[in-house]
């Protein structure tokens, strides 16, 4: 059997991915590509990365058998990969540590990042503080308002948060602004992208750093259940937590990989963030070719999701590829379904999940119902929901 071996040397996953950037960025990306090639298999680099994952993040994150939830749903056994227990509360920290260690080796004293909900911004500010790097985080001014606690966290950690006023004032605009900073300050600056998107080598590099999730899960499932799950379910915005848990399973037969996008108010309303499930046209944005929510003129359209972390018009190119080759399946969950799953996990298992992860939980419940009791669904619980309490309270008309 031919093992999965993507992307190609230029970052292509079939027709997806690539390096669609202005000439001013080509040199910086070449430098990054060369340095990442140099260190991705370097034992010393990997040892330092593993050390921080263990002692700073608290890895391995456990796998937890959600028995009461499974019984309540009445079908397959639901297991949770507990990325919510990581330092800073989500999977994002895995990748920021990898990239920050690379920045240090490349002699870049300044790191920048884009953030939507603020989780990637907090994770970047955290590792920047730990390594003594200057840190600037770009965040859409709408998101700055919606995510005030995370803005304060970043500031406590010594980062500068720059509100972005252009375009829709959300994640994609923050990404545009971070790219602009990078073009201007490339001599001393490392751009830490938070998801498996962007120009090569980012989709591959972020996937590699996040694949610790799936690598651990494969070992832990054998310990816990004596076998691998029948299905692995993860939410997909840009898609980094999903790629992290999917990637080590791609070559494992009989394990379904299911990515859950945000259906927002419903796919039929157009107010969603589910380019794969909705079969959006293929296009080029933020340095890579992928499925993209756009109008007939090729302009990017505004997305909607109750979860800021899934509110992105594109998706990582490797997901586009896995959809086309049918190795992974993609489905979408509405705001309401995600909220129901959020409350369900709180009350049944004593775990407050992130709204992003609640999309994966909602689909896992649907799926588990159709399966036998001796089958297993593994959900990547990518983050905890403390950051979302204001959103949840507002939806329930509760004043905190």
């Amino acid at each position: 059997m031919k093992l999965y071996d993507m992307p190609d040397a230029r970052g292509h996953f079939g027709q997806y991915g690539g390096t669609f950037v202005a000439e001013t960025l080509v040199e910086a990306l070449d430098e990054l590509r060369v340095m990442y090639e140099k260190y991705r298999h370097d034992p010393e680099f990997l040892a330092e990365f593993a050390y921080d994952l263990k002692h700073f993040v608290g890895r391995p994150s456990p796998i937890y058998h959600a028995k009461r939830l499974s019984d309540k749903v009445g079908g397959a056994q639901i297991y949770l990969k507990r990325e919510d227990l990581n330092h800073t509360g989500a999977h994002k920290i895995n990748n920021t540590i990898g990239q920050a260690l690379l920045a240090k080796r490349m002699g870049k004293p300044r790191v920048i990042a884009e953030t939507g909900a603020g989780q990637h911004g907090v994770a970047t500010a955290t590792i920047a503080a730990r390594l003594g790097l200057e840190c600037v985080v770009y965040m859409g001014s709408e998101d700055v308002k919606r995510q005030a606690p995370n803005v304060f966290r970043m500031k406590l950690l010594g980062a500068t948060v720059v509100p972005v006023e252009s375009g829709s004032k959300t994640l994609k605009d923050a990404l545009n602004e971070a790219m602009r900073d990078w073009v201007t300050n490339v001599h001393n600056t490392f751009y830490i992208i938070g998801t498996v998107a962007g120009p090569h080598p980012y989709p591959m590099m972020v996937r590699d750093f996040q694949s610790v999730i799936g690598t651990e899960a494969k070992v832990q499932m054998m310990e816990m259940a004596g076998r691998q799950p029948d299905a692995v379910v993860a939410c997909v915005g840009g898609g980094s937590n999903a790629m992290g848990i999917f990637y080590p399973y791609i070559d494992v037969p009989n394990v379904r990989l299911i990515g859950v996008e945000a259906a927002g108010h419903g796919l039929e309303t157009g107010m969603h963030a589910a380019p794969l499930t909705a079969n959006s046209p293929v296009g080029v944005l933020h340095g890579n070719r992928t499925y993209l929510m756009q109008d007939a003129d090729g302009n990017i359209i505004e997305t909607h999701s109750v979860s800021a972390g899934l509110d992105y018009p594109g998706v990582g190119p490797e997901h586009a590829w896995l959809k086309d080759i049918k190795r992974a399946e993609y489905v979408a969950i509405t705001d309401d379904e995600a909220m129901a799953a959020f409350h369900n996990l709180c009350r049944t298992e004593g775990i407050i999940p992130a709204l992003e992860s609640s999309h994966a939980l909602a689909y896992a419940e649907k799926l588990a119902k159709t399966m036998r009791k001796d089958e297993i669904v593994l959900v990547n619980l990518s983050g905890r929901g403390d950051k979302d309490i204001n959103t949840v309270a507002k939806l329930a008309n509760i004043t905190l």
Partner: protein
Amino acid sequence: MSRIQATFKTLKQQGKTALIPYITAGDPHPKHTVDLMHTLVKNGADMIELGIPFSDPMADGPVIQRASERALVHKVGLTAVLEMVKAFRQMDQTTPIILMGYANPIEAIGAVNFADRAKSADVDGVITVDYPPEECGEFVKELRARDIDPVFLLSPTTEPSRVDLIVNQASGFVYYVSLKGVTGAANLDIAEVSQRVAGIRQQTNLPVGVGFGIRDASTAKATAAIADAVVVGSRMVQVIEASNNENLLSNVATLMQELKTAVDAAVKR
């Protein structure tokens, strides 16, 4: 010979440097664009760079992004831009028009379809900011098959080996971006630009245009001395932004005259 090539040839015989203003199509309102284009030509534009509005112009600074946003309010997309070029051509069949934009609007209608429609609108050149040569082989083929010049950017960080790769794909001219950073940034270092342009000339016979950071008579004059074309974008768009319906054309004409005088006064090195 394409219109762009012919224009450069004529200017070279006259010992002159081309002045290429940039405006975003549909800014400040689609009803002004064709008039603005004629005003640019009347006041010294040798060619026009016409921006295709895009929702996410990553390589542009805030000035040109705002121009895109103003145009997009009026739903000015690629189709509307091509219609504007057609309308311009009713009165002007000689001034080269170079479209400048991002890959996605082109991908949305497909490379072949775009090339056909650009040809029928009588477009002369296309700059696609986020299509580096490695990613746009088919697109370049389609353009060149229709005698449309694919124009590429070179930057201060472009290594000589890449310059070779790029000039082999390009025709019409190459566009040296004279600054690190986005459009509209400050700090033009003429000595450094001069040295880089000289290096590029050793690798290609294509004319070399210079842009990014040219904002007044003195920077235009200094650049004209070393380049085959001077591109003025953000400054032009700033003047448009600061104008109203009454003084729009006259303000643009005034800036163009100032730049034209400066470019023509440059002593070629």
